[in-house]
């Protein structure tokens, strides 16, 4: 049994919040640089150049990549050999978020009561935390600051079990086309296929930070990712929906076994500022 103190967790989360909001992952940077080369539209090319300038300036001048520093979505992969000591795990995560958003001069965007008063909690807590218990004695912490502009454009649908891939491709195309410029294209599109309703949505979120330029290990699923990306980019929506051939940088699919009567599909839309940062304790 390996012991990890909550203080180390709090400190790590605070650091991840600041780093994730200022420093774009290298795979996303590469994706944007490639797109700037291949894009045909002159206005779209200019927008992509602005996005490249943005991640360079954000890191150099320590200004957040985006003013929407997001909901702090935290993925925890806890090794089953780990014993958390010194306090409560989720409390440590939230203390880390509070500290990170304060010390990092990040925007507090969380309201306590979603329906009635909508008072801002002032420190961006609480985080949305997903837990997974895994073998081993390590603790993986991933912070994904998720902006609302793109998160609000996410969708879910249940298909007939034999609807087939074409129906899913059409669902993704329709989603991307109808949300237009709201989620700040070029997008990273996470698709979760299988499981149950809530599980497919969680898979879709997880698919986002698998990385731009990566593929599912299943060949048929990888081929579907390529087909979807090609078709999404054929829509002509373009960066910021001003027209162009770069509407998405990646479509990442994760599948999971499902019920004989089900084919649930979750789509999580991520803007070009596909921020995430992982640490291993």
């Amino acid at each position, binding site marked *: 049994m390996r012991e990890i103190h909550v203080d180390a967790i709090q400190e790590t989360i605070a650091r991840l919040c600041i780093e994730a909001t200022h420093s774009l992952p290298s795979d996303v940077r590469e994706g944007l640089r490639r797109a700037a080369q291949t894009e045909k539209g002159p206005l779209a090319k200019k927008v992509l150049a602005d996005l490249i300038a*943005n991640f360079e300036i954000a890191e150099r001048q320590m200004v957040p990549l985006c003013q929407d520093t997001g909901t702090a979505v935290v993925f925890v992969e806890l090794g089953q050999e780990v014993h958390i000591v010194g306090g409560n795990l989720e409390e440590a995560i939230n203390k880390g978020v509070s500290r990170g958003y304060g010390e990092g001069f990040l*925007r*507090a965007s969380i309201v306590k009561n979603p329906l009635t008063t909508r008072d801002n909690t002032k420190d961006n807590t609480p985080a949305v935390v997903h837990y997974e218990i895994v073998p081993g004695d390590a603790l993986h912490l991933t912070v994904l600051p998720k902006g609302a502009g793109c998160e609000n454009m996410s969708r879910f649908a249940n298909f007939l079990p034999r609807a087939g891939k074409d129906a899913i491709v059409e669902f993704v195309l329709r989603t991307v086309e109808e949300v237009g410029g709201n989620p700040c294209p070029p997008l990273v599109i996470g698709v979760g296929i299988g499981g149950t309703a809530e599980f497919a949505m969680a898979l879709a979120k997880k698919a986002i930070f698998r990385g731009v330029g990566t593929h599912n290990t299943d060949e048929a699923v990888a081929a579907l990712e390529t087909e979807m990306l090609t078709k999404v980019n054929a829509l002509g929506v373009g960066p910021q929906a001003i027209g162009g051939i770069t509407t998405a940088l990646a479509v990442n699919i994760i599948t999971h076994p499902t019920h004989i009567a089900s084919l649930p599909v979750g789509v999580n839309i991520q803007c070009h500022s596909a921020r995430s940062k992982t640490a291993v304790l």
Partner: protein
Amino acid sequence: MALERINEREVRLSPIITDEEVRQLRIGDHVLVSGAIYTARDAAHKRMCDTIEAGGELPIDVRGQLIYYVGPTPARPGRVSGAVGPTTSMRMDPFTPRMLAAGMKVCMGKGNRGPEVRQALEKYTGVYLIAVGGAAAMLSQFVKSIEVVAYADLGTESIKRMVVADFPAIVMDDCYGGDLLTEGRRQYRDQSTLGSYVPSERVVIAAG
């Protein structure tokens, strides 16, 4: 002169803006915004429109003004501005026709507008600009000062007076019914790759 033409597709625009100047702007034009503008998001729009309905006086004079949909991050000590990228404009759609009726000439955000806003832009001679969404650090370089002028209790959603110099934007919807989203898709859509997929006539009515 609040509108200065740099070249055929690029202008410099400073409030106070007139109908005559709005009429010179077409979709796809580059606009460099300079001078004093105001910021407002959902909560401030709700309050302003409630005030208009109640026959009260607005805390700012919106006539000829540009309103930027933004909720900045706090500035680090020693810096003028935090990150100042645009927020999703569609959330302001229910309020925009009333703001245009009250004399606002230009609004700036990101994403598409619904038909009621596009019609109101024609009716009241207004224009909708987009700043590059998610380019908030880059955009912070064009901000010279920010001060809260109304609704301070709303925090990041308060109304701020922001002085900018050559803040870059693009005309998304003009006062002639032109819409860059529709035009862009028409120009760059590759239907042969899309096969049997039928283009959606409906553009964004998802919440958000």
